[in-house]
């Protein structure tokens, strides 16, 4: 495990492996989301109570799950970076924050657009809605803290503490509908239970998986870029750059050869 972690933690190894799997993950993301959209918008029935407005669920719920999932990944990566000093973990945590903030923002906006016609309000200060808003502030605070320090190590350490402390908010969001009286309805899905009809559950799960993979795609893309930037003076990046520039300037090389 530790051998593997350190091997994968080596920037060069990570860059090569992630480059191989990225197209597959990206392709699967596009496929899942397209099928999910088709089922969610066309092929699934309207709800017996909420009619067509229920289609907002296929965006809202997967985004909400991602907003919490990404935070946990971010906090875990930040903790690994803080304790074992693994650069890749620091990078993964840092680049996860804007992605997580995006999904949190989508959750809040779509929830508002769903709440207005169904509940009769854009916003209420109930426990579920308020704790999700706090999640957005945690992400924004993390991003602000990252950019507040000149030194990358200090920035990573300070923001890691915030990320870890803020992680307590995630179970609060998740269990808020059980712990308190909320306007938001209770959980529809759990281990071995679902109160969503199969015809609606399928697009929901496809979209959820699609959004998860979209996060992985974005995470890999951004981490790879960040790795290149931070390691630009190392031998392997120099080699890579030589190879890339050689490819793009090969035409020039050929023409100069012909002149000779």
């Amino acid at each position: 495990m530790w051998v593997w972690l350190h091997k994968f933690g080596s920037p060069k190894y990570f860059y090569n492996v992630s480059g191989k799997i990225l197209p597959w993950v990206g392709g699967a993301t596009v496929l899942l989301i397209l099928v999910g959209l088709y089922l969610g918008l066309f092929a699934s029935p309207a709800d017996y109570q909420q009619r067509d407005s229920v289609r907002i669920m296929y965006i809202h719920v997967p985004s909400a799950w991602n907003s919490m999932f990404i935070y946990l990944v971010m906090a875990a990566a930040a903790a690994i970076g803080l304790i074992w000093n693994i650069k890749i973990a620091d990078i993964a945590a840092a680049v996860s924050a804007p992605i997580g903030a995006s999904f949190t923002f989508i959750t809040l906006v779509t929830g508002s657009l769903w709440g207005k016609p169904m509940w009769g309000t854009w916003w209420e200060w109930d426990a579920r809605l308020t704790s999700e808003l706090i999640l957005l502030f945690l992400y924004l605070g993390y991003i602000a803290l990252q950019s507040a320090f000149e030194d990358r190590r200090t920035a990573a350490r300070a923001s890691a503490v915030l990320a870890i402390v803020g992680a307590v908010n995630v179970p609060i969001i998740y269990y808020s509908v059980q712990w308190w009286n909320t306007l938001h309805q209770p959980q529809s899905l759990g281990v071995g239970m679902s109160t969503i009809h199969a015809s609606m559950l399928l697009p929901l799960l496809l979209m959820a998986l699609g959004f998860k993979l979209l996060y992985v795609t974005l995470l890999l893309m951004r981490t790879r870029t960040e790795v290149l930037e931070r390691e630009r003076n190392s031998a392997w990046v120099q080699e890579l750059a030589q190879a890339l520039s050689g490819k793009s300037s090969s035409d020039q090389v050929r023409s100069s050869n012909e002149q000779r």
Partner: protein
Amino acid sequence: MTPRRRRLMIVLLILLAVGVAAALTLNAFRGNLVFFYGPSQLAGVEKVHERNLRLGGLVEQGSVKREDDGLTVHFNVTDNVTTVPVTYKGILPDLFREGQGVVAQGRLNAGGEFMAEEVLAKHDENYMPPEVAAALKQASEAGGKTPQFTGTLMMQGGSNK
């Protein structure tokens, strides 16, 4: 102790401290972070007539009556134990219907009637196509038992206190 060990300890300590703090706050909030009161809980609220609060429950079947002005509505909110009459003047949300959940904000007057300034609909966690809902309803009427999806009464908060 190696530096790595020390950092691990620091992180664990932070987690522990935050966990304890969170547990304490949650416990303290448990009573206070109430978005709404159920009809049965209303009696236990201090100075209930002076406070602007929210009442949540189900709209009692057959209780909705509209006045001639088309805006004023009377209905009963119930948790199947206690029933509170509500008066509201304004536009109701799309999901407002008998047998469904509502959260009304307003004041309980001296006569025990809840004067609502705002009425929000609260739906349950069940999602299904209309045909399935109709089939379930039919089955329950034929068999005389409650449908499989009963919809929670969202009164789970009613148990504490």
